């Protein structure tokens, strides 16, 4: 079972990592702005192909090693887990190294070929976009918070009847395998972690709603449609994640209070179902929406405006992935290599939203 779960996750990471160059906007390759008219460059296409091929090969080798060792040798669950994590880590680090190599190559090519030197560099904004934003209202993200507070109250009521040992970790079979002493803090620790995460999601939605819409200067109408869809579906995806987490942790909390309410089958099915739905949703989101909505085909046909290209903000993108721009009031911006949002490191509020919750979660975990 554990082998199968890790197999699925490693396979998933391989597919997503290998697909990333093809899920991005055509105007950005390996974190470098590609001026209008050059996105079809043969060398760039080759870079993307080589990147993906190497990831696929690495992923397959990883899967082969993992399956052979996982099935043939008598490894304990912990060893299988560690091996699975190491393979995931190796895959992620190699994609980063590959990315960096092709980022440098792309930068070089752009400079040598003098792309976009005779184009006017502009930035475009749509003045009506605020009224067209279809992102979920932040109040919806607050609903799971209410559920969690309800669960904390429910736990408080049932506190006297709860067992002396409170589970803190669940094994691959879905059964708890690590415990801590019962105390008013330890019985709700899991819910507190959930609460912090949900709070982070609320803040995330509030601030991504305020983030700028970066339009393609030459294809402003179609890129506007793509951007709006990206914002909408990303907020849906974030909400689904928040909802799934609430259901899973709420379920675990109820089993802690009442014992095996759903029997061993449900204990196994709940986390698995969580994982399967989350992976499926990620895949649908990545391939249907794509970065910045690049996979969405607008119904309108738009001829590219000639003579203009997007203003080149490569200087603000350190290594093509870290955005540092003190002037831009956006706290989160679209990723350049990858899918979803990343933070503006030039804006201290972003640090607060990401790192404070993470620190609180770490503190809660270690105090158990």
């Amino acid at each position, binding site marked *: 079972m554990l082998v199968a779960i890790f197999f699925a996750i490693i396979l998933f990471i391989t597919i997503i990592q290998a697909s990333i160059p093809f899920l991005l906007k055509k105007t950005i390759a390996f974190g470098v702005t590609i001026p209008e008219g050059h996105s079809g460059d043969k060398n760039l296409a080759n870079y993307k192909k080589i990147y993906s091929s190497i990831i696929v090969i690495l992923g397959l080798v990883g899967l082969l090693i993992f399956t052979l060792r996982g099935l043939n040798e008598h490894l304990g669950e912990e060893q299988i887990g560690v091996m699975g994590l190491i393979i995931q880590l190796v895959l992620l680090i190699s994609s980063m190294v590959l990315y960096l190599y092709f980022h440098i190559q792309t930068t070089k090519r752009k400079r040598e070929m003098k792309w976009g030197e005779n184009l006017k560099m502009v930035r475009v904004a749509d003045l*009506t976009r605020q009224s067209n934003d279809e992102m979920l209202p932040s109040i919806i993200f607050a609903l799971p918070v209410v559920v969690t507070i309800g669960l904390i109250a429910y736990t408080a009521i049932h506190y006297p009847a709860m067992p002396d040992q409170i589970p803190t970790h669940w094994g691959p079979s879905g059964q708890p395998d690590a415990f801590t002493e019962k105390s008013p803090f330890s019985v709700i620790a899991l819910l507190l972690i959930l609460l912090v995460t949900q709070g982070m999601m609320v803040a995330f939605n509030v601030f991504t709603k305020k983030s700028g819409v970066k339009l393609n200067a030459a294809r402003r109408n179609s890129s506007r449609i793509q951007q709006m869809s990206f914002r909408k579906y990303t907020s849906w995806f974030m909400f689904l994640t928040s909802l799934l987490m609430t259901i899973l942790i709420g379920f675990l909390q109820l089993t802690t209070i009442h014992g095996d309410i759903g029997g061993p089958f449900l204990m196994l099915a709940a986390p698995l179902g969580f994982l399967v739905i989350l992976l499926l949703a990620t895949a649908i989101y990545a391939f249907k929406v794509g970065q910045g909505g690049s996979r969405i085909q607008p119904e309108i046909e738009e001829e590219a405006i000639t003579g203009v290209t997007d203003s080149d903000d490569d200087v603000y993108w350190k290594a093509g992935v870290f955005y540092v721009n003190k002037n831009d009031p956006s706290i989160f911006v679209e990723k350049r290599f990858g899918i979803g949002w990343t933070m503006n490191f030039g804006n201290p509020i972003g640090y607060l939203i990401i790192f404070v919750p993470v620190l609180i979660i770490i503190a809660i975990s270690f105090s158990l």
Partner: protein
Amino acid sequence: MFIQIEPTSEIPIYTQLVNQLMELIATGTMKPSDSLPSVRSLASDLGVNMHTVNKAYHELERKNIIQIIPKSGAVVNIIPSTGPNELQIEYIKQMVKPLIAESIVYGMDKDQISSIVNSIITEISEG
């Protein structure tokens, strides 16, 4: 309804914003009582400092073209049916004078200058 700025241009960004917004109002694309995007939203869309957008909005307010209502944002004013006041006429004269002088220095005659002015008016009124 789009606006476009050139960050590398010699013209300051806030002036570019003022000019573009005025043009949108002159062509009738933006109508009286239409609201402008919030300073933060326009600044983040363009990736520029909020002060830049704020400066542009205040410049437009100073010219009586928009009105900034605290907490609810900026709205476009009605184009006065009584026409411009003396100060505005004086201001326009002052702004146009060096341009006309420059045109004459380039060797343009009265007809050429008039035809440029006319074609710009047509362009704007036809949107």
